[in-house]
């Protein structure tokens, strides 16, 4: 009897978890930005430096709470959720683009370093997992409690971007060097 109750409780919990994840995923899809061409993405500005601190900080929330107006508090939570989800989608799209560029550059490279590739891939997978968690957690709790995780995602995104840029620069330098060598012969 106890076994069947545990099973039912387990199934209910699992269904609840699936519902929460689906809700987060659907909400994130709702805020998906319109399709942009690669050129448009390249021309688009990068996210301002203080953006994460501002969106995920409690300073504005304290101001709104001080107004003692439930309607405005609800509007604030709804709006900040929307902004935070747009940031998650945008940053995750940017990282996927960086990885595509990396894959292109890696195909041209003749001496890939296994350790570097593993490091980039593990950072990419970590980021994708963090973005997934952030999407769901923002839906459930709002962005105000997730500043630490968002800052971590931002730092890691920057790291992956920098690694890819230096990797691409290295590949370019090597291919130019070998082209010059061939021309000299």
């Amino acid at each position, binding site marked *: 009897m106890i076994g069947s109750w545990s099973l039912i409780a387990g199934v209910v919990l699992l269904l609840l978890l699936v519902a929460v994840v689906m809700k987060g995923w659907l909400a994130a899809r709702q805020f998906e930005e319109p399709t942009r061409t690669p050129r448009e993405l390249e021309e*688009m500005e990068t*996210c301002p430096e*203080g953006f994460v601190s501002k969106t995920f900080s409690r300073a*504005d929330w304290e*101001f*709104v709470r001080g107004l003692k107006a439930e*309607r*405005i508090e609800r509007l604030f939570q709804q709006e900040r959720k929307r*902004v935070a989800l*747009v940031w998650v989608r945008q940053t995750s799209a940017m990282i996927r683009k960086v990885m595509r560029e990396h894959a292109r550059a890696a195909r041209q490279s003749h001496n890939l370093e296994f350790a570097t590739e593993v490091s980039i891939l593990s950072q990419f997978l970590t980021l994708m997992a963090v973005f997934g968690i952030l999407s769901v957690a923002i839906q459930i709790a709002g962005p105000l409690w997730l500043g630490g995780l968002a800052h971590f995602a931002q730092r890691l995104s920057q790291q992956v971007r920098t690694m890819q840029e230096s990797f691409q620069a290295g590949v370019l330098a090597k291919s130019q060097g070998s082209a010059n060598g061939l021309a000299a012969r």
Partner: protein
Amino acid sequence: MDVPDNRAAVEGAYDDLLRRSLSKIKGDLARLIYVASTRDYNTGKYHHDGLAARFQAEIAGQALEMAHREIFHRLAECSLRELVGEVEIYVSSSRQSREEILEVWQKLEPYRVALPVDVNVAAAQLFVSNVKLALAILCRRQERQAMEEPAS
């Protein structure tokens, strides 16, 4: 004209724009609306007669675009409390009635048209969200004032 010359000319035009026009406008939100209004809806190009007469039309356009981005970033980065202050300055300095502006801005959201082109999507969303909140806060203040007035 080569690139350094062009940049110097744009900076000259930008300084001129700040000194002659933008410094006379009260508040960054009003400045943003003003600069955005010099942009053609169809071409996305900026035009300002006075500035184009003193500099070339293209230089003037680039200076206006530069000013537009700078003002937008200042507003996107300010706190919600500061943005409420900006909307308050804009509403108080307008000739239309306060109630009318607040109502129309909430319905039509004209501030969405005041965004520079290709600005970061998340930053644009934060700005739009904060203006929406600032308008709601000012409306509430107005409602409370209206409720307190008959009592006093």
